[in-house]
């Protein structure tokens, strides 16, 4: 039955080849073992994320505050909805994949092709959604200040509501242009400048006496926390970030070092820099898996259209890429839990 589909042959001895002790063909078995090793790779990444999170458990960003966007709904605070939608899209593309495998078992070429196409579309929508999620994360929303100590402080009003940097900062006559190769030394450049300078934010903070500072640290409502004199009374809730009183806020702002807008591999306006690093790395690695899955699916889709598997009289290749595709979905289930829910 061709090179790719081997069958159990009782006439051969166990080690002579052509025998399937695990009841799966060579290709399928190797796909399973590839999945095992890839699963361990992802586990390593997620466990490393867990390590960093437990290490900095008192100042880890709260996902609900980070991922709050939904397409076409500007300014609406919608935590979780978008990523839930992405999860549905991926689970649904898993369903169409398994339907394609099912149709393959019944040798229905047209049905296999149709479901493969749906799977590819689902995968592309998912990758696109992830790109949009990245864009929002990189762009940031409120902006923050990094202090000389390296911690991130954010601004809130007297009710504890977040305030954007643009509503804090004043414009000072000190405009500085970005140093590019075209306007300075040709061999020196610098990354793009934030919209406001530290001095502008500091002056703005002075001009708005009602503003307070929110730190990275999470308020735990312990005896020690309750007795902390530098916290603003009334605004600190258990398991929320600490809000400082005006006096302590002024000390923090005086200590400002950098204006941070959005997140990248070095700075993160939402808090711990490691959060951004792990987010980019793990969702990026997963997104790359989805992308390769889409490419492999497209190849198999064309093979289905060309009738390759009709000639082979077996749709086992569809089953193998199906295994990979479900694995990608499986990983997302865990990424979703550990980045967005927990």
């Amino acid at each position, binding site marked *: 039955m061709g090179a790719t589909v081997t069958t159990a042959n009782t006439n051969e001895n166990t080690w002579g080849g052509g025998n399937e002790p695990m*009841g799966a063909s060579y290709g399928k078995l190797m796909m399973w073992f590839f999945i095992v090793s890839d699963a361990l790779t992802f586990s390593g990444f997620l466990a490393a994320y*867990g390590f960093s999170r437990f290490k900095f458990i008192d100042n880890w960003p709260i996902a609900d505050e980070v991922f709050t966007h939904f397409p076409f709904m500007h300014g609406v605070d919608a935590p979780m909805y978008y990523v839930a939608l992405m999860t549905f899209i991926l689970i649904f593309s898993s369903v169409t994949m398994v339907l394609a495998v099912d149709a393959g078992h019944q040798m229905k070429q047209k049905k296999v092709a149709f479901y493969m196409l749906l799977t590819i579309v689902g995968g592309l929508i998912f990758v696109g959604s992830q790109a949009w999620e990245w864009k929002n994360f990189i762009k940031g929303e409120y902006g923050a200040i990094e202090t000389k100590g390296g911690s991130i402080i954010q601004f809130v009003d007297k009710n504890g509501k977040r305030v954007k940097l643009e509503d804090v900062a004043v414009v000072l006559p000190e405009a500085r242009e970005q140093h590019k190769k075209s306007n300075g030394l040709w061999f020196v450049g610098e990354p793009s400048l934030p919209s406001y300078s530290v001095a502008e934010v500091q002056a703005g903070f002075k001009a708005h006496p009602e503003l307070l500072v929110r730190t990275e640290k999470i308020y735990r409502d312990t005896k020690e926390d309750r007795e902390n004199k530098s916290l603003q009374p009334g605004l600190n809730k258990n398991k929320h970030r600490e809000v400082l009183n005006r006096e302590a806020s002024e000390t923090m702002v005086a200590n400002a070092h950098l204006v941070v807008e959005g997140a990248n591999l070095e700075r993160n306006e939402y808090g711990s820099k490691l959060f951004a690093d792990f987010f980019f790395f793990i969702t990026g690695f997963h997104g790359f898996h989805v992308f390769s899955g889409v490419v492999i699916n497209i190849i198999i889709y064309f093979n289905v259209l060309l009738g390759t598997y009709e000639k082979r009289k077996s749709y086992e290749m569809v089953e193998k890429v199906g295994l990979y595709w479900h694995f990608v979905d499986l990983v997302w289930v865990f990424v979703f839990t550990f980045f967005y829910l927990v």
Partner: protein
Amino acid sequence: MSHAHEHVSNTSRIWKVFILLSIVTIIEVALGIVRPEFLFMNNFLSMNLLNWVFIILTLYKAYYIVWAFMHMEGEKSSLRWAVVATVIFLVLYLVFILLVEADYVYEVFKNSTIKWNF
């Protein structure tokens, strides 16, 4: 086909599993948005109950993806053990070591004289 057993269509089971996974996801998202007080504020093994619920629901989903979608339920038990037992053992080992160690590092930071939040 040389397969010993005839392949029957599994379509109805596939849709059932899809509905199940969707319901579990909806429950997770709802819990994540509401964050019920009695789950969120009570701890078990230094993690709040809500997080335990999320992790258990995730493992529940993972089981259905592997068993129904990847059709692990139809494989021989030797293949099942070779794949699942390996991953479960190594992941538990890794997670145990890293998380315990991370908690230790956290304590060191917390009780040391180094001031970081300034």
